[in-house]
């Protein structure tokens, strides 16, 4: 038995005999009522995707899964392909299990691939990912004093982000893959 608080992407939950893989989740701790985990889960038998709320106090049964560090190689219409850098083994994951996270992928990015029954079923991004700023407007003088401290920018893999106004084209920035926010500038 396990707690919903341990849910990760790719966690396989046994609900009355049917296996569901977690595609995405969000922990919610409201001031009222009990805390819960809001999930999108996919049936491993028929591919159906549903939304489901698990209360933190529930007891769940998880199936064993394995985790492998693999590099993202490329995407096509329905799948994303990852490779093990040591064995050159390649696996594919359906886009429906990756969802919005797809936008953070760039060639060579090391991710954690979740394996179940010898199949790759999901992947976890690093919490923070480094990108090069490919395009952003120069800072506008006098805009720093209050509010309005962010501006639009585009990364090397065409991800739209918001960065502080001092960031210049060519700078390296760290972005949170959980919220999409700029976290810090890092050394080139």
């Amino acid at each position, binding site marked *: 038995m396990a707690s919903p*608080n341990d849910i990760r992407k790719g966690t396989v939950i046994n609900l009355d005999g049917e296996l569901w893989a977690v595609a995405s989740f969000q922990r919610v701790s*409201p001031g*009222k*009522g009990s805390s819960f985990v809001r999930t999108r889960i996919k049936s491993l038998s028929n591919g159906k995707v549903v939304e489901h709320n698990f209360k933190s106090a529930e007891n769940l049964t998880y199936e064993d899964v394995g985790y492998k560090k693999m590099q993202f190689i490329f995407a096509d219409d329905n799948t994303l392909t990852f490779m093990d850098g040591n064995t050159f083994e390649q696996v594919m994951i359906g886009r429906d299990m990756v969802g919005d996270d797809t936008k953070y992928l760039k060639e060579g990015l090391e991710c954690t691939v979740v394996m179940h029954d010898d199949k790759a079923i999901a992947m976890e991004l690093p919490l923070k990912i480094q990108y090069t700023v490919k395009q952003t407007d120069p800072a506008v003088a006098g805009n*720093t004093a209050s509010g309005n401290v*962010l501006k639009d920018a585009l990364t090397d893999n065409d991800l739209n982000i918001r960065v502080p106004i001092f960031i210049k084209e060519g700078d390296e920035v760290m972005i*949170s893959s959980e*919220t999409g*926010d700029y*976290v810090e500038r890092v050394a080139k």
Partner: protein
Amino acid sequence: MLFKEDLVLRAQLWNDVQTSIHSFFTSRGYLNVQTPLIVRSPGMEPNLDPVPVDVRLLDGVKHRGGLITSPEYSMKKLLGGGLEKIYTLTPVFRNVEKMGERWSVEFTMLEWYQQGKDYEACMVETEELVNSILGGTSSWPRISYVKEFEKHFGYHPADATPEQATKVADLFQFEVMPKLEAEYDRFFLIEYPVAEAALAQKNPDGRSAQRFEAYVNGLEICNGFTELVDPVEQRARFEAEAEERRQAGKEVFPIDEELLSGLASVRSPSFGNALGVDRLVMLKAGVKNIDAIHIFPPSSRF
């Protein structure tokens, strides 16, 4: 360590927000008070997990205590001591699931209290304060929890059967909150079921209580009450919370007797509000990640 530009920007952001808060309350006649961080009773709420502290005096005497989860107990003692309008801006501490994203073991709380006024007056001040920092106009919609619940589910929470009653909070959270957050940028949720506002004064009809929360862009930023100032009821509530903690295997800290003995001197109505300043700063910065606003980002601290 962050680069200098990030440090300056974030320090400036916090400076601006703190300066706005101090001038807001000073201009309204509130007294800024400092409350202790290490206390014997750091908080009784069953859902909170205080950070315990062992104090060892040099003469060998040991005291078990903890870091405050909120300055509430100290603030209410000051009301009992006769202070009429007080506010504090203080670090608070809660063990959390993880560091980063939306969580930190240490964050900044703004609490303010006023005797002789109820939660309506507090909501007006709340929206004026938030607007003074984020900009925007007043008269945020007031959404009644109990009315909204009745609209969706066909019965008033006060008329729920014992079986229905256990589901009210979850139904509201799962079915109603997402719709409200999608519909309104800023709003107050008011008139809570009595069961979810044990420390708030009841409305005259007895079917809801004077608790409110403010939501800004989907973030809950504060929780306020027309405070219950009945020491008997407060003790019963503390004892129930202590029992819940015991059953959950959590450390039970002693009931704060100084708070209970002072409560009888607090006038009714009195309001109190607790606002998460980190969230306000995140809103001002336009980010959803707590790491992005701190000069010492939580996720890098342990």
